[in-house]
């Protein structure tokens, strides 16, 4: 099985999708000729022509707006927002339009489209190249929201997202594009080629949206994570010597409640981690859900370790980022509480 970085896996997913279904069109800023600033669409224009993969003006509203129109026509647009931090100009088109078209027209028109975007910090990107806005999408009925953590999942989930009949927000933590970054920014990163999840099958396969993956089985505490934080949690567990069960949620909405509940019932303890700001983050929803469904099994308070409620600071990003130390400390506290 070939080994791929997450960038290569995403590119490969595009390739497979475009090959199988000529309704799939790909566009965005610098996406066509150049292949995207993270190179996730490199080679697509050369391969499929500029009518299948093309550059756009710098207008996120326009990109998503025309994608909604194209999807209503019958195409399957998969568009890129250059950084998640720049999705807000398109927010109205996503929230008011893509998300609600099927419902408001009672199925007369639909908007099967994918909006991909790199998220998260760790590249000294400052407040406008580091955000994780997933909670701004999970609150919106009609959207599905996916966060990927590794090449294998990225390809299978992206293919599933493109084939899905509903609009999907597809979040790619840029810090794991090239390896399973565990938060130790001062150590060399392990490349995906040395990691089992870097093995990516050729051709077509999908991973069902709405299914979590148990990243690590364990008995002492359930850790709910997604994206980069899956690897951070693993490092933290290992460093603390805690037998944590780490669940990689993969799809935040719809959420795989069964896998979560089963785990928490088993461990009796739950830690929720994410990189986005704490308040009203998706961790709040996870905490509330677990509490509602596992109240009588909980032996300790559900704890959240998240980004602080500040803009993502350039120079202090490693103080901001919920790294293995902070996550590990909280894990220990939850286990000992």
């Amino acid at each position: 099985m070939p080994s791929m970085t997450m960038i290569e896996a995403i590119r490969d997913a595009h390739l497979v999708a475009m090959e199988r279904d000529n309704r799939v069109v790909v566009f965005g800023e610098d996406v066509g000729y150049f292949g995207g600033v993270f190179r996730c669409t490199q080679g697509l224009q050369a391969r499929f022509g500029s009518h299948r993969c093309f550059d756009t003006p710098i207008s996120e509203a326009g990109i998503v707006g025309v994608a909604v129109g194209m999807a209503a026509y019958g195409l399957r647009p998969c568009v890129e927002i250059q950084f998640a931090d720049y999705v807000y100009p398109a927010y109205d088109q996503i929230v008011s339009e893509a998300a609600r078209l099927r419902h408001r027209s009672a199925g007369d028109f639909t908007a099967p489209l994918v909006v991909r975007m790199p998220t998260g910090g760790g590249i000294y990107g400052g407040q406008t190249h580091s955000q994780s806005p997933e909670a701004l999408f999970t609150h919106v009925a009609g959207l599905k929201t996916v966060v990927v953590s590794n090449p294998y999942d990225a390809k299978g989930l992206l293919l599933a997202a493109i084939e899905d009949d509903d609009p999907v927000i597809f979040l790619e933590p840029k810090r794991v594009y090239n390896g399973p970054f565990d938060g130790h920014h001062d150590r060399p990163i392990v490349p995906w080629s040395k990691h089992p999840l870097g093995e990516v099958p050729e051709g077509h396969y999908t991973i069902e949206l709405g299914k979590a993956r148990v990243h690590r089985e364990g008995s002492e505490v359930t850790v709910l994570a997604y994206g980069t934080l899956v690897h951070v949690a693993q490092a933290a567990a290992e460093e603390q010597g805690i037998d944590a069960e780490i669940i990689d949620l993969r799809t935040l909405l719809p959420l795989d409640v069964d896998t979560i509940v089963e785990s928490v019932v088993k461990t009796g303890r739950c830690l929720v981690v994410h990189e986005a700001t704490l308040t009203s983050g998706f961790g709040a929803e996870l905490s509330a859900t677990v509490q509602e469904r596992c109240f009588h099994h909980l032996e300790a308070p559900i704890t959240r370790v998240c980004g602080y409620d500040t803009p993502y600071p350039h120079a202090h990003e490693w103080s901001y980022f919920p790294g293995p130390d902070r996550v590990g400390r909280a894990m220990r506290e939850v286990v000992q509480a």
Partner: protein
Amino acid sequence: MDPDDVHAEGPAPLRLRIPEPVRAASPKDRYTRHLSPAGEMRKPALDEKVERVALMRKQLVRVLDDDGIAVGEWVPDLTPGQLRDGLRNMMTVRSYDARLLRAHRQGKISFYMQCLGEEAIACAQQRALLPGDMHFPTYRQQGLLISAGYPMLTMMHQVLSNELDPLKGRQLPVMYSSKEHGFFSISGNLATQYVQAVGWAMASALRGGTAIASAWIGEGASAESDFHAALLFASTYQAPVILNIVNNHWAISTPEDFARGASATFADRGFGFSIPALRVDGNDYLAVYAASQWAAERARANLGPTLIEWVTLRVGAHSTSDDPSAYRPSDHEDFPLGDPIDRLHGHLVAIGEWDDDRHAALSAEVDAQVSAAFDEADSHGSVKSGHISDPRTMFDDVYAVLPRHLLEQREQAAG
């Protein structure tokens, strides 16, 4: 630093211009600036240079003169039968609006929006386009559906939000949707559909199709940012789309001046993107048809987008929630450009294809049809009488397949 202290001495103080136009005095031409006589404006070739079209930016395409005669280069090729169909469609729209406004006063529906005075625009453009083309309308193009033969009864079910409402009570009255009739689902959020229309047109061209899109917006909503995205993408990719701006001079209480800014016309916006733009008398059925056809032909010939400013007037209130007497000058004329129905009627009479008896008969027929349809629709009740679809249907269509959390919520809602 106190901002007021900046340049405490020196040049004269700055002033902001707050538009205070229509409300002031009472200029005769408040709704009819830059009016051309019928037949005056030339018809450019489909591929005329945009610079040359721009020279006509303050002119107005008008076909019917004061005597009801069609004059000039824009006279469209319409048979008397087609003209009578147009008349019937406009009369049906007007009668439909009147009946539903009455239904609102009767407390049978929650909300309504009429298009009084603007009937010609939607009715004639619908006829100038082809089946398969897609309109992305606002809430004032009911004429598109009626002219396309969408069942009036179904429209009424939607407005009543009753059990037969095809949108299952989910949408405000008048927010119709019919893919089959080339009518995109109305949003409620202004301007969003404008760029979607461009996307739809781009898709058609990407696929080598032949269908074109028609985007609709009010002059007030052209202020929204999505308007820019629409014009830009249409210009860059030369999308086969008609970009309609219905300038009915009011956006709720706000006169057109706020959205127009310092420009002479809304058509000007097109020239900022080298999109050929026309100003057209929106109360002149023949002019509307001719200009729509010109734009459609340009689109079909891969000559790109056309912007059209339809000059008209919102005669009635913005909606049933609105009372314009609080903000509109009372001396304003309802039909400064003439009533579109009267004008087409006059034209048909002038060419010997119509008379008052036939008109009276048609009027009675249309009213009877509307009345019968309403009675039938009303017999199925309304949101006001509680005759609505099963509340649990609100969970359908949020997604293609009901996800688990909505299943659970639906169960709770039932319990």
